[in-house]
């Protein structure tokens, strides 16, 4: 009959733990897989230097993280959402509906998006126009919109090597995808003047034209990667003709397998991104729930530590890993110290 006792004790254990759940003592973070390495570097250093326990950092993508962030206020919701893009109005609204009103936005720095191919293959020098022409669903030929006819890079532009088009782009749940669409495909679309053709075809509707511009071909020449950059790398290793979209930090850790392409003649590096020369970069953020400051121990200290000079500055460990330091870091530090929430003027 001992198992009856066991069951009873197990149930009692469950009851005890349910009451113990009222006290969470470590910061809980989720969101962008691009920010994850930076957040975990900071979390580790935070755990080493402070009396607070090491924060827990989960990934899952910017949208997924912000969705969890906006679930409400309370100990069973996350304190910080990492995002590789700015929070959307729609998400702010969803947050407000769930009672998350005071959000502190913290910009930690900039991240470059690079195009890389197999180390032993052809080298590439890209422009946004070439990318748009190569992987857009429809392109303009002789003034008319037709399904993308290109199969080789040298058909797109004679200066490119004769190599079949095979692109691995981040899936739609990644924040990287949005930047890629915005700064490469849409930029290329507008530069060629195809944008006006799209606009005319869509009855002068600008939004619809933008949407049509960034629609990618679905004939297998542009493949969405929903996983992490490691998956993109594996695809390139198995198909040497592939060209993948990576974060700068990932490329810098895998320089023995990948060679990076220039964009508009600029080699991506932390320097060229900091000066703004390299065109494809985006700011990285994290969002803090102000209601949790003072409730979850160490939350404010962690946010301040994240943007401190010795961490996020140009000589800090984040910069060493591939983050491009924010020239306006001092302002961010001040905003975090004063707990300035979004929507209020500084």
């Amino acid at each position, binding site marked *: *009959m001992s*198992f*009856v006792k*066991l*069951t009873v*004790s*197990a149930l009692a*254990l*469950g009851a005890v*733990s*349910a009451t*113990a*759940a009222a006290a*969470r003592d*470590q910061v*809980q973070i*989720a969101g962008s*897989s691009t920010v*994850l*390495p930076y*957040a*975990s*570097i900071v*979390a*580790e*250093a935070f*755990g*080493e*230097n402070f009396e607070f*326990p*090491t924060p*827990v*950092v*989960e*990934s899952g993508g910017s949208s997924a993280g912000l969705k969890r962030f906006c679930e409400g206020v*309370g*100990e*069973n919701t*996350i304190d910080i959402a990492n995002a590789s893009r700015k929070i959307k109005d729609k998400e702010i609204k969803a947050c407000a509906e769930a009672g998350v009103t005071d959000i502190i936005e913290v910009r930690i720095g900039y991240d470059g998006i690079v195009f890389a191919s197999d180390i032993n293959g052809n080298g590439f020098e890209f422009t946004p126009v070439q990318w748009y022409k190569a992987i857009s669903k429809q392109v303009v030929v002789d003034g008319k919109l037709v399904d993308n006819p290109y199969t080789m890079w040298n058909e797109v532009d004679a200066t490119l090597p004769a190599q079949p088009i095979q692109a691995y782009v981040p899936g739609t749940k990644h924040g990287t995808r949005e930047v890629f669409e915005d700064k490469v495909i849409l930029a290329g679309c507008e530069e060629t003047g195809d944008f006006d053709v799209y606009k005319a075809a869509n009855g002068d509707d600008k939004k619809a034209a933008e949407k049509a511009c960034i629609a990618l071909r679905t004939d297998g020449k542009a493949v969405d990667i929903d*996983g*992490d*950059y*490691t998956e993109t790398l594996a695809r390139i290793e198995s198909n040497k003709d592939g060209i993948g979209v990576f974060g700068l*930090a*990932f490329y*810098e*850790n*895998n*320089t*023995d397998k990948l*060679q990076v392409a220039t964009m508009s003649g600029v080699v991506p590096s932390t320097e060229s991104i900091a000066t703004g020369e390299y065109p494809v970069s985006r700011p990285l953020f994290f969002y803090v729930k102000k209601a949790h400051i003072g409730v979850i121990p160490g939350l404010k200290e962690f946010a301040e530590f994240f943007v401190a000079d*010795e961490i996020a500055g140009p000589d800090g*460990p984040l910069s*060493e*890993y591939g983050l491009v330091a924010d020239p306006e870091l001092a302002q961010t530090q001040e905003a975090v110290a004063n707990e300035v929430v979004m929507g209020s003027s500084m």
Partner: protein
Amino acid sequence: MTDTSQQGGGPAAPARKHGETLMKLTARTKRRNAAERRFQAYGIAAIGVGLLMLVILVVNIFGNGMGAFTQTFITLDVHLDQSKLDKKGNRDLEDIKKVSTFGYAPLINRAFETKAADLDLKSGLKPKAMADLLSKSAAAQLRDYVLADPARIGQTVSFRFLANSRVDGYMKGRVSRESIANDKNISAAQLDLVDELIAEGTVRRTFNPAFIFGADASDQRPEAAGIGVSMLGSLFMMVVVLALALPIGVAASIYLEEFAAKNWLTDIIEVNISNLAAVPSIVFGILGLAVFINYMHLPMSAPLVGGLVLTLMTLPTIIISTRASLKSVPPSIRDAALGVGASKMQAVFHHVLPLAAPGILTGTIIGLAQALGETAPLLLIGMVGFIASNAPDGVAAGLMSPNSAMPAQIYEWAKRADPAFYERAWGGIIILLVFLITMNTLAVILRRRFERRW
């Protein structure tokens, strides 16, 4: 003649022509024999393919993963400078704590400088570049040492630091001078220095217990990452699974098998238990997120929640195997017990259950092994991610404070950018496999020793 041919070839065998003997095979017998030989060949080929796959898998796992068990260390004498660590000089722990790990970096730079001067190395590298050979965890190691024993400040102490993952990769043959051509994390000059230090005996590659017992580390220091803390997470989850799934599963099976009436209701329950056993595990993860975290407000990332979710997943396995072993106890045992006046409950607990116990145990162990290797449900309850908490200090903390699990840790490592984590993922697989094989062997041994056949 006719009789023998019927015995040999069955009633449908054609009548032999005059002059033929049994020694000479007919075309049809030949065909049948050939078919049998072919079938045997297919069988052997199938086993061969299976074995080949197993060999490839094992060779791959060990080839990729064994490297994770050894690590490169650099021995260095560090002067714990009082002017840097304790400016006031009163050895007040609060004051010493104010010096962050960044404040310890200059000590390491200095130590390298001294080393280079002692050995008369002409590397021409700046102290900072030399210190970059060490893991980023070195400063933290130094700080922990000083905080544990502040009296050492002012002395020179010999430390064994982890080397950077690139240096480690160089020792393991993963990194070469060609492969680092574009790598900004290490330069050829630094590798020259490593060569000199190897010759001198400062750089050594030895067994690394921290991989088996340590905690996870961030993306910047793969060399410091270990699987120990997530192993504890797995252990606590298994304790929860065992404490809940075994009693609940056994009670449910005994009732269904021995007491419940056979009607449409028990039929439905039975069908559903079998169905539950086939439900994909991620479904249990979603259920766990909705019920345990969002409704019951249990903490995220806690092994308790992981254990509860895995309990749900393991229950059907345990119930099915328990019922099968209860069924295999012959009815004569029950009849005899009832015949001498035992109540039904006495018959079950005194006679049937002890005889079924080996089968129940085997089923439970196999269920646990399955739960141990499960990742999918843990994704949804926050047990996958960077969870570098230190080892929990007690049962309550073990159940409630955030932790990962072995398979989740392996998944996490496989995703990270630095190639050194890839090696650790394979190393983690070796440890996980050792656990699984041990558990399954235990199940086989228990069955062999205690199982009775009637």
